């Protein structure tokens, strides 16, 4: 497969509602930004892009079937090839990887991946219903379909199994909201305390309103290219920052839609099929897991995301990453809930299963130059969600995974200051980052690794 580079991106302002523009025009905001950042005119980019991939989650929200083709024509991309991808909350991550495939395979040289969601067209509780329809409509949805409830059940099990606390979860909320304070694209830019998070309105015990991301309208776009595509764009006048940002690894995983159907495998099965190489290489970790299993832990059950671990392992292998915590300079991961960020620390091998809670409160996933007002025992090692993540930026579903890609590109290009007009969130000497996109209760998960050459 050919090398693939992520060369540009754009994000619309994420907001609770964008009645000022239809979804096509909101996508165009992100799309135009990505083109402008390349230094190209709209016609010059149109003449050089080979095709596109479009992402949006719900036909219910848009009440417009085949919405993607209407975006394609609004962007002036017809008759170039395109298709829509959909995979719940992971739609944006899947879209990014589909664009990667088009280039890696040699089918195209320049591809734009764009995604959007318009969640404001229905009232919040109807929106919750639409999202909950992404659960089994025979057996899950009619019992009380509510995604926050599903994730809350997962975390009660995580808490019982591993001793994870609500205060540890609140650390994630404090971190991500405060990071977003420096991100002008974010929907919620607030300073909170652990107590604020716990005092917020209870939504699904133990998750409060500040443990949960909000619904948004918004769009994002990224441009991916081969070496030949970069030459073509530069010949047309593009000013692409060098060193380039290369996509060095992609991984995906899945799990059963019904949480109830997920397996509870024994120790040997876990070690053979799911443990990271790093975990297998550590006698101490093997002993730690043996003790967990002896104590009754089974995997993944409902406390862990097998799809996330599978996607991470695949992407790490592809990118030759042995120790993600020290080798990755940052991760933008899918924190629809504070609890799912903690679960994902474990899936991605930043810590061992069962240690996500203490990891969240350790400081290792925080930024070094922000005063969070928390007593953090450890120095930052691998900032997680330096942008503010879904909890603070918002979660316009089809755009979210692409938003992560855009922020990752900017981190690796060292251009956060240009785009945010604030350099606080720029990670010093960032060379390697991961983006992680996750669909309902861990059904589809993608992990992509981006590196500065």
């Amino acid at each position, binding site marked *: 497969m050919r090398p693939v580079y992520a060369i540009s991106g754009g994000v619309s302002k994420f907001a609770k509602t964008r009645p000022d523009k239809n979804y096509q025009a909101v996508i165009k905001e992100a799309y135009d930004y990505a083109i402008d950042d390349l230094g190209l005119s709209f016609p010059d980019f149109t003449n050089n892009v080979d095709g596109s991939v479009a992402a949006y989650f719900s036909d219910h929200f848009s009440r417009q079937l085949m919405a993607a083709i209407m975006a394609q024509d609004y962007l002036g991309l017809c008759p170039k090839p395109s298709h829509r991808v959909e995979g719940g909350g992971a739609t944006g991550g899947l879209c990014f990887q589909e664009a990667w495939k088009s280039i890696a395979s040699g089918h195209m040289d320049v591809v734009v991946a764009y995604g959007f969601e318009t969640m404001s067209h229905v009232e919040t509780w109807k929106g919750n219903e639409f999202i909950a329809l992404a659960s089994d409509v025979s057996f*899950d949805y009619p019992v009380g379909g*509510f995604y926050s409830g599903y994730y809350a*059940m997962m975390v009660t*099990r995580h808490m019982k199994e591993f001793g994870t606390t609500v205060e540890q979860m609140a650390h994630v909320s404090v971190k991500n909201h405060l990071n977003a304070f420096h991100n002008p694209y974010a929907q919620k830019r607030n300073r909170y305390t652990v107590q604020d998070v716990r005092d917020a309105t209870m939504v699904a*015990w133990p998750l409060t309103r500040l443990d949960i991301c909000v619904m948004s309208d918004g769009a994002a776009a990224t441009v991916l290219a081969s070496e030949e595509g970069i030459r073509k764009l530069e010949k047309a006048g593009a000013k692409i920052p060098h060193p380039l940002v290369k996509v060095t690894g992609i991984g995906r995983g899945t799990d059963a839609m019904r949480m109830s159907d997920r397996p509870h495998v024994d120790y040997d099965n876990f070690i053979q099929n799911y443990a990271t190489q790093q975990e297998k290489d550590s006698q101490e970790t093997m002993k730690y897991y043996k003790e967990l299993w002896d104590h009754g832990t089974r995997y993944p059950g409902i406390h862990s995301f097998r799809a996330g671990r599978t996607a991470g392992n695949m992407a790490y292998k592809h990118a030759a990453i042995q120790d993600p915590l020290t080798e990755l300079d940052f991760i933008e991961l899918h924190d629809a809930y504070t609890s799912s960020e903690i679960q994902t620390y474990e899936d991605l091998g930043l810590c061992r299963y069962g240690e996500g809670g203490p990891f969240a409160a350790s400081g290792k996933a925080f930024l070094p130059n922000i005063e969070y007002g928390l007593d953090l025992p450890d120095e930052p090692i691998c900032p997680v969600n330096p942008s503010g993540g879904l909890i603070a930026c918002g979660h316009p579903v089809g755009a979210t995974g692409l938003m992560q890609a855009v922020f990752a590109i900017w981190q690796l290009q060292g251009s956060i200051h240009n785009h945010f007009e604030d350099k606080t969130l720029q990670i010093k000497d960032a060379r390697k980052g991961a983006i992680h996109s996750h669909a309902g209760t861990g059904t589809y998960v993608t992990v992509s690794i981006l590196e500065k050459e």
Partner: protein
Amino acid sequence: MAKIPKKQLESLGGTIVHNLPFPLDTSPEALAWLKKMAPILIEQPYSIVYLHSYAQDSPWFAGLTNKKILANRDPETGYTYATPRGHDMYTGDETDWIDITERKAAVHAFTVCHFGSESFLEETPYVLVLVEFEGVDTLLLSRLTGIDPEQANLDWIGMELKPQFLRNSKLKPTDVYFIPA
């Protein structure tokens, strides 16, 4: 003490409008002003009734109407699904029906929903549980009643449960629910 709301609840509905402000002429200046207009928002009702088939899972619902909880079991391996599944995910074989009504049941995980989807808002706070059954490999999502939702705590996990059945079946998975044993 209950929190005092700072916002009025938003809702749709309202006044029917039959005309909108618009320039009295279409001079270039007047048309240029149109770009400064706030957007028009209209309501678009949409409803549909689906004829949904429970298909091969239908016996499970018929079981509930007769106060029985059925499960599916792989005929070779014995792997057992508390939530119906016509084919085993490991062997690919068609599963058989078994009766697990009398099996010991316990809370595997839970939450108290203080909010919910529109369809369930009036039922809040309600307790969702994933139920584990003795000798069964997977779980069942259900409702738990008979406990105070304001007293949620992790000790609920592991609590033994017994099933209750609606006398007047609705042919929904909520025809069965659980109470502390």
